[in-house]
């Protein structure tokens, strides 16, 4: 019987230590399922994420990158996510301008109490990226030896 080849996207999720990472934890302890293709990277704050981190993830073969932080106004450091929001808005806009599908990048605000929301966000994002297929445009074969 022919094996049906299915594409499993590589997703990198940057999660802030105070809200979203705890949200992911809650999703886990509540036994909610979300795809195993999501690789979580814990960061102290969403504004710790240098746009280069996202681009490097794509260069090395990620198919989608999502950044999760505390809801605006709830940042553990008061204002970090406000800065991250502006940075990502401009970065995503530039990527889209260069012809990169804008569905491959996303920012979501997930609090520590929103385990269910974390799971649904990840399910939705993985589903979207899966439809788009592998990301070749930002890949850099020089980084993949």
């Amino acid at each position: 019987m022919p094996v049906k080849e299915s594409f499993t996207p590589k997703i990198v999720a940057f999660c802030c230590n105070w809200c979203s990472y705890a949200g992911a934890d809650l999703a886990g302890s509540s036994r909610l399922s979300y795809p195993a293709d999501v690789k979580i990277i814990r960061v102290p704050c969403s504004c710790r994420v240098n746009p280069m981190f996202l681009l490097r993830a794509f260069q090395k073969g990620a198919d989608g990158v999502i950044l999760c932080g505390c809801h605006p106004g709830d940042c553990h450091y008061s204002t970090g996510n406000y800065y991250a929001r502006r940075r990502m808005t401009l970065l995503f806009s530039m990527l889209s301008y260069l012809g990169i599908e804008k569905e491959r990048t996303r920012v979501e605000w997930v609090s520590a109490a929103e385990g269910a929301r974390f799971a649904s966000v990840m399910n939705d994002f993985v589903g979207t990226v899966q439809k788009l297929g592998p990301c070749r445009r930002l890949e850099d074969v020089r980084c993949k030896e």
Partner: protein
Amino acid sequence: MQRIKETLTHWLQSGQVDRVLGWKEGDMPGLREPAFFENAEELKSLCYDAFCGPNLSKFLIAAGEKDGVTAVVLKPCDSYSLNELIRENRVQRDRVKILAVPCEGNIDPRVFENRGVLSVSIEGDQLHLTTLYGEENEPLARCFLERCTVCRGGRHAVYDELLCPEAEETPQKGDRFEAVRELEEKSEEERYAFWQETFSRCIRCNACRNACPACNCRECVFDGAALDSRQKAAAVPFEESLFHIVRAYHVTGRCTDCGECSRVCPSHIPLHLLNRKMILDINTLYGPYQAGDSDKGRSPLTDYTPDDCEPNQGKGA
């Protein structure tokens, strides 16, 4: 020209400044290069005309490491770059003395590139070229740099002495965002195809980075060995995109749109299209902002309001 030299000679001789930063004749016809002049004798070789493209602001960072005051000749665009450097504390305001000169546009050296030119001059409304193959003329109106065709006007952002006050009123020309909007209207595929073709010409000479007054980190991310792409040629046409995204991104909110990146690119990559996209986004999303307008305040990326738009809904392209 005479008045520029007189003023600068006076500044030097009266001890108000220790050196002058200006332009002198370059190695090739029609090219001018930045130069420091330390005394009145050297100052004789200073020149200022439509061929003086280079933006001198960035050289003041290096000049700041020497003692004393540096005098600098600035065109309107360049004064914005300097003001931005002052805002960022990269140049100390009291260590520079600025002579603001009027500008009627710079000639694009690409007009006479690969034509065997021996000399270039402006005669009336024609650019006169003496080449190996004879005399040629180009209508002057077609010879200006892209940035000059969408000139923002003659106002200087910062100066100590203004040479030509009436030139400050020179109005703005054209719409500098027109090309960006055209590109935004295209489909994703078309935009990708455009940039793929454009970036495939990049030879990673880093000229855009080196010439840009806003690109002035002491240590550049692209100089380290951390990126595996260093010292390796791109294997696919879009591979230099990381450099271009990050270059444009790092000057976002600080780019004064002086057009140096596009001017110096040996592969004729329209780098200003990336910078202007970011400027346009900032203007639409966070309110009009012109980097270099003021030597105080915060740039849009180091500021926020609680009701900024969300990245996913951002204007996109």
